[in-house]
């Protein structure tokens, strides 16, 4: 069976956080990421999926895709919710910023785990956070 290279998963309940983690772990391992990178990616997924579930106050979805470039493998992840939005994206990226009683590493921590993070947010419309991670192809 060929490895699946893209897909999506809804984030509607607490249980979906674990489902997202499992899905991405399998995809990242199959794509050939090293052990530490797999842990970084899955941990970022956990933070971002929980972010959708806890903070947005609405349902959301995670979309993912494995990317290939000469000598490299990548993973692209997108978390979209239709919730209240983030009023100040720059502030949300600052170390220690927190709104809902998390430990406050939130997005700035995720940024350290991944190679690239992008946030698009509109108050009252929703938030889309995309992250990318690259590794050496085996």
């Amino acid at each position: 069976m060929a490895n699946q290279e893209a897909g999506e998963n809804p984030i509607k309940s607490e249980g979906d956080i674990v489902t997202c983690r499992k899905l991405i772990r399998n995809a990242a391992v199959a794509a050939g990421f090293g052990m530490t990178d797999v842990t970084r990616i899955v941990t970022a997924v956990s933070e971002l999926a929980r972010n959708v579930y806890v903070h947005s106050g609405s349902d959301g979805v995670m979309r993912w895709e494995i990317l290939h470039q000469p000598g490299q493998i990548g993973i692209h992840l997108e978390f979209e919710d239709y919730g209240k939005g983030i009023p100040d994206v720059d502030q949300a990226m600052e170390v220690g910023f927190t709104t809902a009683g998390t430990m406050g590493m939130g997005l700035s921590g995720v940024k350290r785990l991944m190679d690239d993070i992008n946030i698009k947010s509109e108050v009252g419309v929703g938030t889309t956070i995309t992250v990318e991670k690259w590794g050496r192809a085996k």
Partner: protein
Amino acid sequence: MDGENSLSVIKLKNILLVTVPDDPGDDIIHELQTKVLHAIEKYQSKGLILDISSVNILDSFFARTISETTQMVALMGGKTVIAGMQPSVAITATELGLHLGKAISTLDVDRALDIFTDNFKLV
């Protein structure tokens, strides 16, 4: 309950050995705190060893629960020792900026037991 994906809390003399499954969901993490605190009360344990050698993900929610539980256990007079964290988990936790509060780490359960039996060399 399937043994693979559930939490186990075992009483060993005057301490608790708590084993966490590889990919614990939020429900298991909630359960961890409640179960541990009740067991400490019931058995009047000196503390607990949290065996996380199977755990392959530690996010901020899990870390916060460990840190809080350590504080609560301390209030009940006990010590929390974390045993067997995987290297990739430790690296990710450091990069994410996670803190485990006052919990002590050891390489494995054997060394954690040494801490409770007083013949430990490193704290």
